[in-house]
């Protein structure tokens, strides 16, 4: 924008210039009456700021999340007022739960009619207070530069999260001369930078030294603070095994000998045993979610707990820590490594320490690994995922692959059988568990990483929830792949029906009757979007079908027909303990 300081600009142009000033390179935006000026302004900066048109605001929001989760940068999405804005609610809640940096912009009716139940008016800030990190209703065009500066700062600093900026149409239309593009922020109560103190970290090392069975419980904070290399260095140096949460996957190399994979409800047996047996739990960037802990009073009850997190309100929220530490987890790990350097031989090291403990874990791992009873007469969903991982590994493409998922059984199997060795390659809706997340998230990641293979591992239920985004993938030339595991059911609910409701099917069958062909006809639907599609039902055809998908140039959906009787195992039922683990 060749704007001099005396050229009046519309609020919408100012808004778009603010996005550019904050390094935004793509927005996911669906237009409507109250956001038209923003879209008009976006057309003037096409060469510097790409606008992706989703086919539903929720898809746009999830795509912005996929962009943010895979890059660490702030994702930006735009919608109009009213229904456009309310379609953002799930995205905002999702980003809040999983600490994803997002700036969501909504058009609003003009300030003169706010509160009059005008056409397409919803008080979206009121609606979204509880599901955003912060929110703004901008009432003056003059405030736009400050509001966006604050919004990007809040979204990306401290514990990241979504910020909603609601901009009335007249604020977008009014023309003003911007006096200061970089105004001071007005956030006297916002103090996001926290650092663990030296004495706290010395105490951590002391506790490690006096422990015999230490374990790291690593969460999404490792990924969002870019702490993965430091966690690896720390774990290797101190000789401590690492179990990860669903969102922590990739924060520690899955194929590392110290990696216990995922813990919790569908975590590995050995990870859960180790947590239960540990005499020291180092909880790093986690929030003791109920899907991890089960019955929280029984969780890790044999050990001392060190909890390091940047959000003070997470400390002692669900589980009281013996050593609570507020601080950025990357900084804490860096400082710990530095302290270990200083302590020299006094520092806890791997050699000889905890040998018994590591042997015990090895024993658990060998006797009770993750496993499923494979079949030759069908493609099991676990097999499909594991096989895809193997093929990608054989082709040397793992490090150039990003995986997104929907929510349900396929998501858990992906977490179990697709192994991530580096962060930001695993995009999943953990805290909120939003079905329909996978396809749009994959699209967002593909926008950010054009040369990367982005695969949505999805279920038929989740896929159908945002299937319209195939139109976005096709028209924007985003060659995402979908491994669609179609069992014609809501598999996870079916599993709970089988385990806890005597198998009584309560609206969990998604087909049209067993005398009919699988329903809907996904291959025909996908082809209707002009994307590539194939169906595979025989195990011997799977490899070829998968390779066809991986080698295709455009977006491609491989529908894999899988039986619905499989259960995600192991499983610690909700609110129970490791002793109640279902293994078969």
């Amino acid at each position, binding site marked *: 924008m060749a704007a001099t300081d005396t050229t009046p600009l519309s609020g919408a142009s100012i808004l778009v210039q603010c996005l550019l000033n904050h390094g935004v390179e793509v927005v996911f935006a669906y237009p409507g009456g109250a956001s038209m000026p923003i879209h008009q302004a976006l057309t003037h900066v096409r060469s510097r700021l790409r606008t992706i048109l989703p086919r539903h605001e929720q898809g746009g929001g999830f795509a912005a999340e996929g962009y943010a989760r895979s890059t660490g940068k702030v994702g930006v999405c735009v919608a109009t007022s009213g229904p456009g804005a309310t379609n953002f609610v799930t995205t905002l809640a999702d980003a809040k739960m999983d600490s994803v940096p997002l700036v969501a912009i909504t058009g609003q009716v003009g300030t003169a009619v706010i509160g009059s139940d005008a056409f397409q008016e919803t008080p979206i800030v009121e609606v979204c207070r*509880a599901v955003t990190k*912060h929110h703004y209703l901008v009432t003056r065009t003059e405030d736009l530069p400050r509001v966006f500066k604050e919004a990007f700062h809040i979204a990306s600093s401290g514990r990241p999260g979504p910020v909603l900026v609601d901009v009335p149409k007249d604020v977008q239309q009014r023309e003003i001369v911007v006096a200061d593009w970089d105004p001071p922020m007005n956030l*006297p*109560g*916002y103090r996001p930078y926290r650092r663990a103190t030296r004495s706290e970290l010395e105490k951590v090392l002391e506790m490690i030294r006096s422990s015999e069975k230490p374990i790291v419980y690593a969460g999404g904070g490792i990924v969002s603070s870019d702490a993965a290399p430091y966690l690896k260095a720390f774990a290797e140096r101190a000789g401590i095994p690492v179990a990860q949460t669903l969102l922590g996957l990739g924060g520690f190399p899955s194929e590392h000998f110290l990696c216990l994979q995922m813990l919790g409800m569908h975590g590995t047996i050995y990870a859960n045993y180790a947590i239960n047996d540990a005499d020291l739990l180092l909880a790093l960037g986690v929030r003791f979610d109920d899907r991890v802990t089960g019955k929280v009073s029984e969780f890790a009850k044999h050990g001392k707990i060190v909890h390091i997190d940047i959000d*003070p309100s997470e*400390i002692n929220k669900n589980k*009281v820590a013996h050593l609570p530490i507020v601080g950025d987890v990357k900084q804490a790990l860096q400082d710990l490594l530095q302290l270990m350097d200083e302590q020299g031989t006094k520092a806890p090291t791997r050699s000889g320490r905890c040998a018994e403990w590591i042997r015990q874990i090895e024993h658990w791992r060998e006797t009770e690994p993750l496993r499923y009873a494979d079949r030759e007469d069908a493609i099991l969903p676990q097999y499909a995922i594991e096989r895809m991982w193997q093929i990608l590994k054989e082709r040397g493409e793992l490090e150039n692959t990003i995986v997104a998922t929907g929510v349900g059984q396929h998501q858990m199997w992906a977490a179990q059988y697709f192994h991530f060795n580096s962060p930001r390659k695993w995009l999943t809706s953990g805290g909120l568990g939003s079905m329909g997340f996978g396809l749009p998230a994959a699209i967002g990641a593909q926008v950010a990483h054009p040369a990367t293979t982005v695969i949505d591992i999805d279920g038929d239920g989740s896929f159908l929830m945002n299937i319209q985004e195939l139109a976005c993938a096709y028209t924007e030339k985003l060659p995402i792949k979908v491994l669609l595991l179609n069992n014609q059911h809501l598999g996870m609910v079916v599993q709970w029906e089988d385990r806890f409701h005597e198998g009584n099917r309560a609206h969990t069958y998604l087909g049209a009757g067993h005398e009919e062909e699988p329903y809907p006809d996904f291959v025909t639907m996908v082809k209707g979007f002009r994307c590539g599609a194939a169906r595979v039902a025989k195990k011997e055809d799977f490899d070829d079908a998968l390779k066809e998908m991986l080698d295709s140039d455009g977006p491609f959906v491989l529908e894999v027909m899988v039986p619905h009787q499989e259960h995600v195992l192991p499983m610690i039922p909700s609110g129970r303990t490791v002793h109640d683990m279902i293994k078969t």
Partner: protein
Amino acid sequence: MRHVLSALVQNQPGVLAHISGMLASRGFNIDSLAVGETEQPDLSRMTFVVHGDDAELEQVRKQLDKVVTVVKVQDISSENFVERDLMLIKVEAAPQQRVEISLLVEMFRGRVVDISPAHLLVEISGQESKIEAFIELMRPYGIVELARTGRIALVRGTLSQGDVL
């Protein structure tokens, strides 16, 4: 245990809604909430009276602190502080009862602020226990209606909460 929390918040539209919504959605029980402007026009003070154990209190305080527009939160229960509640109470009072009630009002250092043929309107301020005691004394006469501001509180001494930001 009873706690008094004092919070300085940015004086912006929606802050009260945000905070009360957060407290409700997290299931915190607030006995009293009072809000008003301070000596600095861009700041308001909110005073909360909360019942709960230490763990609950810690969460309330941290969740309040996490709200971006909350500038500072202090649990002043352990400090030497002054706490006041203001009440307007309308009591049934036939002419022959006026003197009797007025005496009670005086003993409580209240004021009669309106008289009608059958009613007295009394203003009274003080700590919660004093207010409650006065309400009990008025019950036999017949309470028509009453309104209370909720508790406000400040720590004694020279330091202001703003000083220690």
